């Protein structure tokens, strides 16, 4: 038997009925709807619905409308209302947890069919908000899914890693220049290092250009992300280019080979390919109903 303290002036029986209704219907004041992504309502995504697997272990279900489905979880407002959500996003462990859960659902959908991933923390007040959104952007979503179908996103990052570079040839010049004061020698050394580093950055920029040209025919679109720095980057060296490419799934091997050929063999410069990703970087804009990303040419 459900318990309630909301008896107010009503009879106990009425209160019990109301309490049961509240539990069953999950009134919108207590629940929110977290949306992961959008796909076609053709049954392909149906296996994703099930217990657990969503943010904070909530169930994942499909909301269908107008030939489209949204992958959603019903989540408590206590955790996904504006303030708790904002606090969570500003706290790295909470952000990571949310990001990985969001990605897990999108990635599972992406493994099956075309999916339009949504920005992290897309939360509607109720399911009517979700169906309304599906209807309002139906044309744009359908076009996007058609455009993205059969494509994967691949990340290409270029790093400068001075430690992996051989000493600059000018190093030897220092010996022939006669005795110098320690301060002067220090400044000369700094200058050489700086020049060596600048050479490396120039080389990395050249590699970036070579990679861009090498994949021009294979990639359908590209987006430049901000370069990665700081403790989260966790990579050796300095990230000088961080791009995403939309590539036909059946051309992924060719793309990787092209990047490898164009990006390897330069001392002190490293190129890394990540993915395949769901097309996160090519999912906007949708409100205009046009294509996301930009065509390479």
């Amino acid at each position, binding site marked *: 038997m459900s318990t309630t303290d909301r008896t107010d002036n009503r009879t106990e029986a009425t209160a019990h009925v109301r309490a049961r209704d509240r539990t069953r219907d999950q009134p919108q004041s207590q629940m929110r709807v977290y*949306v992961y992504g*959008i796909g076609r309502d053709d049954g392909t995504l149906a296996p994703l619905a099930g217990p657990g697997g969503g943010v904070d272990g909530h169930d994942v279900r499909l909301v269908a409308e107008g030939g489209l489905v949204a992958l959603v979880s019903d989540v408590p407002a206590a955790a996904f209302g*504006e303030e708790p959500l*904002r606090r969570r996003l*500003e706290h790295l462990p909470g*952000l*990571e947890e949310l*990001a990985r859960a969001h990605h897990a659902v999108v990635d599972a959908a*992406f*493994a099956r069919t075309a999916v*339009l*991933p*949504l*920005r*992290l923390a*897309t*939360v*509607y*007040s*109720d399911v009517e*908000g979700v169906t309304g*959104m599906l209807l309002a*952007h139906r044309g744009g979503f359908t076009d*996007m899914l058609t455009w993205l179908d*059969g494509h994967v*996103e691949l*990340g290409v990052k270029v790093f400068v890693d001075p430690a992996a570079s051989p000493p600059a040839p000018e190093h030897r010049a220092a010996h022939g220049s006669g005795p110098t004061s320690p301060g002067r020698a220090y400044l000369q050394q700094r200058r050489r290092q700086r020049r060596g580093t*600048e050479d490396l*950055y*120039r080389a*990395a*920029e050249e590699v970036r250009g070579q990679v*861009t040209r090498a994949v021009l025919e294979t990639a359908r679109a590209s987006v*430049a*992300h*901000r370069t*990665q*720095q700081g403790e*989260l*980057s966790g990579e050796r060296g*300095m990230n*000088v280019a961080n791009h*995403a490419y939309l590539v036909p*799934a*059946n051309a*992924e091997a060719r793309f990787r080979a092209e990047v490898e050929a164009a990006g390897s063999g330069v001392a002190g410069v490293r190129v890394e390919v*990540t*993915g*395949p990703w769901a097309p*996160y*970087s*090519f*999912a*906007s*804009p*949708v*409100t205009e109903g046009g294509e996301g990303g*930009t*065509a390479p*040419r």
Partner: protein
Amino acid sequence: MRTQVVDDGRHEPGDRLAGPPVALIDLLDRLLTGGAVLTGDLVLSIADVDLVHINLRAVIRSITAEDPAPWARAAAPEHPEEDTV
């Protein structure tokens, strides 16, 4: 070190679950600046999420105008195909 996926055109769900987890920074690149941005009765607006990105800059340290990249001089300006969406 990244997942090497055999190119079969489709990827079974289990294939990539078995690989190493994706780097958080690569994920945040995509989830905080990518993904379709929707409107309507949303709990949190995109502007708020952008604020979050800025608040996290101490950790993520994305390059900004106040914090220019040291290689900015060397970077060639011509990549018209790479306008951020």
